[in-house]
């Protein structure tokens, strides 16, 4: 069978989302780093032919070619279940309620979280100063969202967002969580007990350790994940 391939950038949360999903399901694949600033590189050219929007990641499994990290994540969760570790629900009502939190991450958590990662993680690496006004606004926005999350975790009482077990609704958050917990904003999580446990649980998963290993191997500028 042809090797499965993931094209992406190790410093992008979208690529990390796809990686976490593949490792979680013990899917064998080869990773092809893509440098979007360097379109002469073969990997990049192949990649651009896979994703019409030119944004990473892209996933190839035989004739199946997919872009958009959350679509890749959904497909991996449904297509590669492991016996006893099915991270999806068969019943539409349960799956519907769990999957809604993927969209909540997309529309409510990710906007402020990614602004904060840009300001507090990426800018310093490039020798730039964070914009305090942007940080302040995003922090306030995120705090409101995290209050909703704390309440949701109280309702599920399982330690997971989607329902009574780990699902894609949880893992979709891990890349941003990883970066945020390395900044002073970790106190937003540490001061919310259920959220704090949830965060620790996600970052301690063996699949996430594998993502970190891969990133470290491929990071050639500087270590961005400690």
């Amino acid at each position: 069978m042809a090797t499965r391939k993931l094209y992406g950038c190790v410093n992008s949360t979208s690529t990390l989302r796809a990686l976490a999903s593949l490792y979680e399901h013990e899917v064998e694949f080869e990773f092809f780093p893509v440098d979007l600033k360097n379109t002469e590189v073969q990997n990049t050219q192949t990649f651009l032919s896979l994703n019409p929007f030119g944004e990473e990641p892209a996933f190839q499994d035989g004739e199946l070619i997919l872009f958009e990290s959350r679509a890749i994540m959904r497909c991996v969760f449904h297509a590669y279940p492991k016996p006893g570790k099915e991270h999806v629900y068969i019943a539409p009502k349960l799956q519907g309620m769990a999957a809604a939190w993927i969209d909540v991450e997309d529309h409510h958590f990710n906007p402020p979280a990614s602004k904060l990662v840009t300001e507090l993680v990426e800018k310093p690496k490039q020798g730039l100063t964070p914009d305090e006004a942007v940080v302040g606004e995003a922090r306030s926005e995120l705090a409101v969202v995290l209050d909703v999350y704390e309440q949701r975790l109280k309702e599920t009482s399982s330690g997971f967002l989607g329902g009574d077990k780990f699902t894609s609704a949880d893992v979709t958050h891990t890349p941003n969580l990883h970066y945020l917990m390395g900044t002073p904003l970790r106190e937003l999580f540490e001061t919310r007990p259920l959220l704090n446990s949830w965060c620790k649980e996600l970052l301690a998963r063996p699949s996430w350790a594998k993502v970190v290993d891969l990133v470290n191997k491929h990071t050639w500028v500087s270590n961005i994940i400690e």
Partner: protein
Amino acid sequence: MAAVPVKVHGPAFSTAVSRVLACLFEKDVPFDLVNVNMAKGQHKSPDFLKLQPFGQVPAFQDGSISLIESRSICRYIAEAYADRGNKNLYGGDTLHKAFIDQWLEAEGQSFNPPSSVLVFQLVFGPRMKIKQDENTINQNKAKLTKVLDVYDKRLADSKYLAGDEFSLADLSHLPNAHYLVTGTDVKELFMERENVGRWWEEISSRDSWKKTVELQKSPPPKK
């Protein structure tokens, strides 16, 4: 008469609400539309926040469950009522669903941001007497142009975004595109691209969308 278990809370003119309505019509699922008077702040009331903790429309109920996020609600409707109405709306198998998901994500990540800004600037803003911002309009027209170029290329090879059949991925575009094509000069960006124009004519003439537009024109249901 038995109570209808499916309830959609929100005004039909809201793009996110109309996305769900189109899906319900497409799947032939009966529902009650419950008005939410946003001008009076009903979407921030404690009762509404129990259904939608972010205070946004729509909120959705089906019997004992409540759901949020219009695209999630559409996926749920397609799965829970798989044997009703358009059976292929969300694909037949995991592979097909994956293609639909990919273009649903493209809609949410690439099409929705510039198109919703333009809907606000060119349609709702003027109704609310909010001054238009030329820079914002131009920037977002430029972004939307790039997205529609990608779509035009895709639709040269495929009747609909995810394949040969109409799917949730196409449906998800209807609300924003409708406002832009029927009420603004952004119509040209769609119609001057042959494949996008053809696709728009097809998807907007579906019965499900016509019924949704009718609801948008009707007075809100009384409680």
